[in-house]
């Protein structure tokens, strides 16, 4: 089963990378960009029996650093979201 894990910096956390990319977009002449935030997408191919709980544990223990990041787990056809 294909599963996508979307990892984003928490809203209060400054994103220096996003800010640099924002500046670059403006320097290139793209107007109207209010903010840029950069995260990462992790694709997992897991067995059908993998539970939401197991996926959450993978995110909490390794894939995301919940001090600075939130994660979202997207299973094929269903979306379960968790703000850690």
């Amino acid at each position, binding site marked *: 089963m294909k599963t996508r894990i979307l990892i984003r910096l928490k809203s*209060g*956390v*400054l994103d*220096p*990378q996003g800010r*640099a990319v924002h500046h670059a977009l403006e320097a290139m002449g793209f107007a109207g960009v209010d903010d840029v935030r950069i995260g990462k997408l992790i694709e997992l191919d897991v067995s059908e029996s993998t539970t939401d709980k197991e996926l959450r544990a993978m995110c909490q*223990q*390794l*894939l995301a*650093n919940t*001090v*600075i990041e939130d994660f979202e787990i997207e299973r094929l056809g269903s979306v379960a979201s968790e703000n850690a």
Partner: protein
Amino acid sequence: MSFKAAVITFPGSNCDRDMAVAIEAVSGEPVTRVWHRDSALPAGLDLIALPGGFSYGDYLRCGAMAAKSPIMRALVAEAHKGVAVLGVCNGFQVLTESGLLPGALMRNQGQRFICRTATLAVANTSSPFTHGFDKGEELRIPVAHHDGNYFADPATLDALEAEDRVAFRYADTAHGSLNGSQRNIAGVLSADGRVLGMMPHPERAIDPVAHPALGSDDGRRIFGNILKALVGA
């Protein structure tokens, strides 16, 4: 006196030899080198050091993979028994990822790798690492990192300050923050004061003959503090 120290090497560590050389130079005792796949540490250690470098190529996040390696389970158990742990640079990142220290090290605010000698102000003077210093005393210690921007939420930062767990702060901030670290934090202690994580590299500032040209031998004093606190030398 007998001082038993171990230095952990992960794939991608590159300051492990320097760390061992520094500890041996100050203590006069051989240091045990431990590989990341080992699951046990030697008995009776006084100090475990996590060196700088790019463990596991900084995959996923700096220190994230190393924090889950077999040797880290043993290290966390030893730390909980009170064995002193020093994590420098990538070692600091590994300590935050392992949960032994709070917060996280993010990409430097200016996006650039910073490699220069930094001025630190001593904040804590009661830990095994800092007891020989005066509060506010300045040290010159090199930094070399891309991800040294210390972040923790305001409640955690307030608690760290209230509990006297900030070991060092960046002091040369007249032209702005060194790397964007919250409250200019350069080093953080565990609640019992026996685990220190710091981005600057004391092991790169230990030789009074070689280092005037490079900036300082203040790092040697941190190792001297450790020795005095742990074995009374």
